[in-house]
């Protein structure tokens, strides 16, 4: 599929047209930070954002979603099949979404995620302004060379728009009359990608990401878990902001008649004290170092063993979200690489 080059006016016309046709979730300023939210007007779209506070996974696995409705007659499934566009997703967040696609599809497929996901069109946008803690360059997720439905790259005042799927082609249909990108533009895009691989390294990982599973596998008894977790509040902020965290809780919300209601799925987090608690009171991960270690081992070892992908995309959100500054994965990985000390 051809790659178009569009100026600011064409971009605005295009996004205006999309907003008129369907829900567009786009990045917007929120105070001095940025957030994904339904876009009312194109001028609010901020493709120059550094990082969105909450990862766009929130629109695919919402913090609270209805799985089932029940009444005295029984249960029925609730699925959300409203089409929407997720506009301006950074490559590292898109990489996380592609991982979620595997998680929810493998083994016993989860229709609640998959049906919503099937309705989403993913417009990925290259990073223009690296955030304070991003290290996607170290995790090979600074650039998304494949995947997503549309890829946007800013070149000067213009954008290169690449359609990467049938859904993407449908989305960019109105741009058919725009000029194709010239070879020089593609060279500039390649340069942006090369630059981003180097720029999105606010923390420098001293090991190759591919070596992390083996490194973590031999670090079970490393003192770093105990040391760092001493300052952990078990608040779960690192789970909350993580684009690859998908653990969930399920609970029933009852209406006033005490007979009907909804079974809802909410985000959960392995750092919360009661995550591994069972009825009867036994907590299988009672101590903070156990929970803290589990999170890193799950991201870098257990999930890798399952999907051959590291469940850390280097967005750096956990680093900023952690109140006591113990959640920097790069710091931990580098420390482990130094060996026990």
């Amino acid at each position, binding site marked *: 599929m051809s790659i178009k080059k569009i100026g600011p006016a064409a971009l605005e016309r295009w996004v205006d047209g999309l907003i008129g046709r369907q829900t567009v979730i786009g990045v917007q300023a929120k105070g001095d930070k940025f957030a994904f939210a339904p876009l009312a007007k194109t001028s609010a779209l901020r493709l120059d954002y550094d990082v969105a506070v909450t990862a766009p996974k929130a629109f695919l696995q919402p913090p609270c979603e209805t*799985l089932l409705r029940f009444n005295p007659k029984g249960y029925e499934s609730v699925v959300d099949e409203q089409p929407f566009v997720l506009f301006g997703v950074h490559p590292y967040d898109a990489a996380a979404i592609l991982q979620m696609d595997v998680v929810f599809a493998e083994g016993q497929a*989860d229709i609640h995620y998959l049906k919503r996901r099937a309705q989403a069109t993913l417009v990925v946008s290259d990073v223009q302004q690296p955030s304070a803690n991003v290290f996607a360059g170290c995790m090979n997720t600074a650039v998304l060379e494949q995947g997503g439905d549309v890829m946007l790259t800013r070149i000067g005042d213009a954008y290169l728009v690449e359609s990467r799927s049938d859904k993407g082609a449908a989305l960019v249909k109105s741009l058919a009359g725009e000029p194709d990108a010239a070879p020089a533009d593609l060279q500039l895009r390649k340069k942006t990608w090369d630059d981003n691989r180097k720029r999105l390294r606010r923390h420098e990982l001293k090991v190759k990401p591919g070596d992390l599973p083996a490194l973590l596998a031999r670090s079970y008894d490393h003192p770093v878990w105990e040391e760092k977790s001493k300052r952990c509040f078990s608040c779960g902020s690192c789970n909350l902001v993580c684009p690859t965290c998908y653990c969930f809780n399920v609970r029933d919300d009852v209406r006033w008649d005490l007979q009907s209601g909804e079974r809802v799925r909410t985000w959960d987090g392995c750092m919360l004290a009661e995550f591994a608690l069972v009825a009867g009171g036994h907590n299988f991960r009672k101590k903070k170092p156990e929970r803290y270690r589990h999170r890193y081992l799950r991201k870098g070892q257990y999930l890798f063993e399952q999907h051959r992908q590291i469940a850390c995309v280097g967005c750096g959100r956990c680093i900023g979200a952690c109140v006591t500054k113990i959640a920097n994965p790069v710091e931990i990985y580098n420390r482990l690489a130094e060996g026990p000390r």
Partner: protein
Amino acid sequence: MSQILTAEKDIYLPEPADVVRAEPMTKMEMFFEFKLSSGRPLGHMPGQFAEVAIPGIGEAPISISSSPTYRSGFQMVVRNVGNVSAAMHRLAPGKKVGIRGPFGTQFPVDGAMKGQDLLFVCGGIGLVPVRSAIDYVLHHRKDYGRVTILFGTKSPAERLFVEEAKQWAAQPDTTFLETVDRGDEHWKGSVGVITTLMPKVKVDPARTVAVICGPPIMYKFVILELDKMGIGKDRIFVSLERHMKCGVGKCGHCQINGLYVCQDGPVFRYTDVAEVREAI
């Protein structure tokens, strides 16, 4: 390019089941028999569990206590310890629940246990899932060698399946021994933790398969005793407890290091979890 898969079946949708029996067993435990409203059998094997849903309360993983050879329905024994189990204790015949499952691995009644002498070591409600295997084995009595069942509880009042255990003990080549941590004025049997029963048992370690289920603290001590008896680690099967919230390997609650108890367990061959640090 990634392909987004879709499916039609909702893995979280419970299937209606009818309460056929609901009878108190001890102060804390209630015995249930359910039947899927569709009339089809649950299709479980010994050792598996199902999610029981009570509308408005929630869902909980409960082990299946009956053998699949019992065809009228399936049975569970539930200790009143949480929201769902408390709501289950208010159930009566004629009421409905939701069921998802069966989930998880089984005791290898048709595999490693077949043709072998069997040693079941159960603590408290650990007897509940193991009963499905005991009944299965006794139903196919000729397919197995000597059967020894060890059962320990905290007190005489907490003993489960008391009448059934007498029938087990009456089967040929079958021994049932029990103990309590603390007796009472009527108790004339053994007093002491479950491991105190183990020296009383004579087994041929080369042809014995052991099955363990009980409170978390019990496993390592029982395994030490089995080791003393000469039973190889690969001949030991453990059923492990965790919070199998979703049952389908997604929610993360039941993970033991990289293993999902709801999918990889709850029954594990001991050699598969001996080196898994969070397991035992």
